[in-house]
């Protein structure tokens, strides 16, 4: 079923058109990295705050609210530039273990970010709001998103 889906994606006119132009594909790859930086910044600024390593004079909830548009905007940018790359290289992605590791961690990271992390960041806490729980949430968030970015880089190198 998954194989059929990937074969179908690879056969679409859009996928072929993107692959036909090396320039076009390379630029999409390059812009993808710029969105990655925006997204990473929005993740890190909140996670560092959760861990008490930056911006501790502002409430966690405030830092998280400020970063949210860039977190979501960065992720949308990553999707808009990532999905076409996946479609153009559908069969290479399907047979790459790193692609599936990336997807698995992305699912975990998304669930974590929009459930537990969101709940912890938006919870009203006194003082600097840094507790053992917030430190763990910040660290887990960084590790999960790193585990999305690292295999992503390896897809193209080992396929």
């Amino acid at each position, binding site marked *: 079923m998954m194989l059929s889906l990937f074969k179908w994606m690879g056969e679409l006119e859009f996928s072929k058109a993107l692959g036909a132009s*090396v320039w076009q594909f*390379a*630029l999409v*790859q*390059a*812009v993808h*990295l*710029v969105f*990655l*930086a*925006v*997204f*990473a*910044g*929005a*993740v*890190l*600024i909140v996670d*560092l705050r959760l861990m008490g*390593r*930056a*911006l*501790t*004079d*502002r409430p966690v909830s*405030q*830092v998280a*609210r*400020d*970063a949210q*548009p*860039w977190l979501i905007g960065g992720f949308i940018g990553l999707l808009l530039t990532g999905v076409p790359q996946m479609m153009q290289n559908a069969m290479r992605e399907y047979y790459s273990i790193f692609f599936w590791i990336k997807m698995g961690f992305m699912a975990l990271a998304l669930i974590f970010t929009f459930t537990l992390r969101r709940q912890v960041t938006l919870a009203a806490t006194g003082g600097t709001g840094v507790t053992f729980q917030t430190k763990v949430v910040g660290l887990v968030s960084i590790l999960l998103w*790193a585990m999305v*970015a*690292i295999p992503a*880089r*390896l897809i193209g*190198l*080992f396929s």
Partner: protein
Amino acid sequence: MLMLIKSVFEWVNEFPSSIAIRESIYVYPAILTVHIVGMCVFAGLVIMMDLRLLGIGNNSTSISQIQRRLFPWQMVGMSISAISGLVLVYTQPMRFYPNVFFWIKTVMMLVAGANVLAFHYGAYRTVADWDTKVKTPLGARVSGIVSIVLWALVIMSGRLIAYNWFQ
């Protein structure tokens, strides 16, 4: 000058350690991956600072606080990407030397560095007057947008080094 740079690249290209890493299947991809992680930390937090300068992000935090508290992490990211980047060049100097995107990236990094200095010795000196304001002085906003554009160009040209166009 160009001949001197080329000679240095050719000289490094023959180092046994450069050849060893170049011929290794796993070391080069590992260093490249570390380079990307460092880039995410550095450029990501620089962009967060730039958004604040432009008044379009992180506006509830004062500029001096963002600058002071993110700076050590930006330096961590920069160190990781700079060291891993130098190792990447060290391992394949003759692949980088004729690559136009490598030189675009290098020049953009130097210009971005000059922009940081211009900001610190220019607009930032009066930060006490506009530290908590959303609308920052023109100099700060110009510095913010220039920084975002330059670092985006650094990232993009870095990715395009993989393509040997114009060689």
